[in-house]
């Protein structure tokens, strides 16, 4: 079976772990519990009658307590930059992480605006957001809480890894 390493990157508390939990176990936990280090979950998806095992590397969020470590992206087939659409700064941080990751790897990258069940709070012009979106292969609005678009997003990334 084909195995693909996918990294979830982003600022802390944007919902990376919740996205994985929703996708793998169909569960959402309202209480925020910060991730430490790395946790890898696996799930098999089907792409054009082909089974692909996604190895989802859920990596501790980057902030002043945890700096970006390029080594985790090594060998990844794609990565997901997750941002919290209620927090402008998480988008800026996500873009900065994308820039750092791009120095190391040129694999497909998806931008995920998570927490779509909440009111968006960008305070940014649409044109500015579109400029950011243009830096990625795909963009999704997801809600780890309701499950909205989560499956679709992971399916899309599986497909992107096979295109390469």
């Amino acid at each position, binding site marked *: 079976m084909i195995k693909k390493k996918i990294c979830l990157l982003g600022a802390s508390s944007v919902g990376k772990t919740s996205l994985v939990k929703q996708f793998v176990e169909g569960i959402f936990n309202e209480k925020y519990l910060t991730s*430490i280090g790395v946790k890898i979950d696996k799930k098999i998806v089907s792409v054009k009658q082909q089974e692909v095992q996604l190895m989802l590397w859920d990596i501790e969020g980057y902030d002043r307590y945890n700096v970006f*470590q390029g080594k985790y992206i*090594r*060998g990844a087939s794609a990565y997901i930059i997750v941002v919290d659409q209620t*927090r402008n700064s998480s988008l800026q941080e996500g873009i*900065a992480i994308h820039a750092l990751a791009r120095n190391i790897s040129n694999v497909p990258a998806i931008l995920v605006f998570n927490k779509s069940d909440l009111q968006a709070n960008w305070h940014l012009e649409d044109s500015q957001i579109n400029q950011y979106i243009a830096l990625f292969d795909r963009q999704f609005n997801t809600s780890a809480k309701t499950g909205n678009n989560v499956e679709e997003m992971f399916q899309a990334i599986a497909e992107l890894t096979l295109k390469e």
Partner: protein
Amino acid sequence: MNSILLDVINALQQVVLEVIDSRTGEVCHIAGDSKWMADLFPQLHGQRSFVIDDHTPFLHDFLIDAQQVWQGDSNTSLKSGFWTEVAPNKRELHLEATAIRYNTHNILLIASLTEEFKIRQNTLQSARELLLSNDRLIEQNEYLHTRLLAILKEPEQQGDILISLTKAIEYTEFSVLITDNKLNTIIENSATYALFEQKQHSSTLTEKPIEIILNLMKSQLPEFDRIMSTKSGWDGELCWVLPPSTLKWLKITFYPVKTELNEVSNWIIFTNDVSSIKHLVQKSEQLALQDMLTKLPNRFSFLQMLEKKIISNKPFYLLYLDINEFRSHNEYYGHQGGDKLLIDLSERIGSILTESDYIARVGGDEFTIILSDINNQHDCQIILDKILKCTDKPFISNKDENFNISISIGVASYPNDTSSVEELMKFVDLSAYTGKVKNKSSVQFYSQSIKDASLHVIELEKELRDAVKNHEFELYLQPIINIEQDSVQKAEALIRWNHPEKGLISPIQFIPIAEKSELINAIGHWVIKSACAISKKLSDNGYKIKISINLSPPQILEEELFSFIHNCIKEYQVEPELLEIEITEGVLVNDYVIAERLLSKVRAIGMTVSLDDFGTGYSSLSYLKKLPLDFVKIDRSFVDDIVIDDNDKAIVRAVIAMAHNLNLGVTAEGVETEEQLKFLRKNYCNAVQGYLYSTPVRFDNFLQFLMTFNKTIKS
């Protein structure tokens, strides 16, 4: 292996593996029988050696980094960092691997660190919740502030403004108060009533929210009077106690809304209840008195220390330091960038202080320093020089760009200046504010004259504001003569203030105050409008003479400046070719990118650009080459002695040659004698300006001058 050692390894929840082949990941089990081992390595099956493969992808990946350790020559080790595996029984294993090379042995040690993991998780949980709360608070405040400013500055009917304001603030989670210039509340949102525990529309209020806030600021903020008198903003935390049961920590942000004449039209006050954040902080005793960002003592800790120092009755110096234009820095680099600067700055300053000194962060970009073992100004100056030197070196932004900052320091001495905590704080704050110079670091020791000077500035600013309202300014014109054609080519527009009591006041006296008080934009607008009116009148009289307008450095930063110029040109129906902008070199050094953008735009519509005072400041040939310029003006200081001083002769010749090579015209300023004119003519200078032809004169006198100047080209 010794059985005690084995017990220790098991007790520590560790597994020791010896690496057989670092490339294939083949290892041999040496010690450690923790239960989780079989869950982690199902391929073990009772064998001693096995291969670490992608069943444990994190560990498998770590082997790549570990090879550097195992293939090296020296005794060393490398940790993997925490990772989590889920055992078949769904139990989470929190593990860390260490690659070790010791005496030619290659070891892989794996430890289950559940307890350490939990401790780290708990610590970071609180820290990240705090970060999140702070981030949200800052983002919401900044956004709402921008929106409210836009509404308050809109030229709408008052009724419409109130509706717009109500819509903007009503559903905000924190308290928002908007007052008039006298601090009378115009509007407040529901969150205000909730925060201050009052019923909406109640007529039995004992103390209104605005009164509570002002009383807190007056009693807990020695800088309050200065903030109000200088119309400055402030943000910080204050403690509100209302017996018997209320104790709230309030983060208050106080913004002035100013008119073009630098008068306060409104105050916007945000109050956030940060008691829960404080509660999180107070879980740790250390954090309660510590600034979370820089880890320095916070304002309250500092005030306690200042009291202690005064009680000990030993002389000391108090420094109050703030970063100039910190708000602009935050806007450019984002507040994470601002945070990084505050941390870097605090570390730099901290590194040059001794153990007996004390540094605290007492506000957004404000630090205080107590220099304990110093009792004279000379020794204090030595430390100040070190602080200035260490802050003068470039900082690195979160975008990996180099940038420089400037700081303002106010200094007061105990007991020479005062023996009171409150006065010491007032004095250093006032000194830092008074000494502030744009784009330059400054140090100001407190003295009575500082207090007097600050009152004088406030008075002069008021007079200047009246001058704008009462039309007390006048533009004088000084002709610029094209010496190749012997014609009046341009006139420099120079502002004069006809003070009703003090008479004519030169711009040297009032422009610096206008620049500091932001009145410069209003005065600058008046100059541009008047210059356009003059240009129109000259055209109507048949003269095609270019009017040259001086722009002050702060004006360049005004976002709407180009639109304003463009609108004036349209309003007065002036040909843009008959207008010129004059800027000084200082503008280029400090705000090169902004200046370049503005100058390109004005040239695009047909205006010309002249570089004033060339040679006196930071002349850089690279600026001359890159900037969109048409003329340079040689400063009068080079022209004064041009006839007798060989150095000045050489400089002027070189400037003319260089400018011509760059296709720039050259105007010499301060030409007063025929000999100077002769020299300039001989060296192909294009134009001159000075008393030899005319002093700056009123419009009517300028017309007279034109009529008598024979060779003026009359269209």
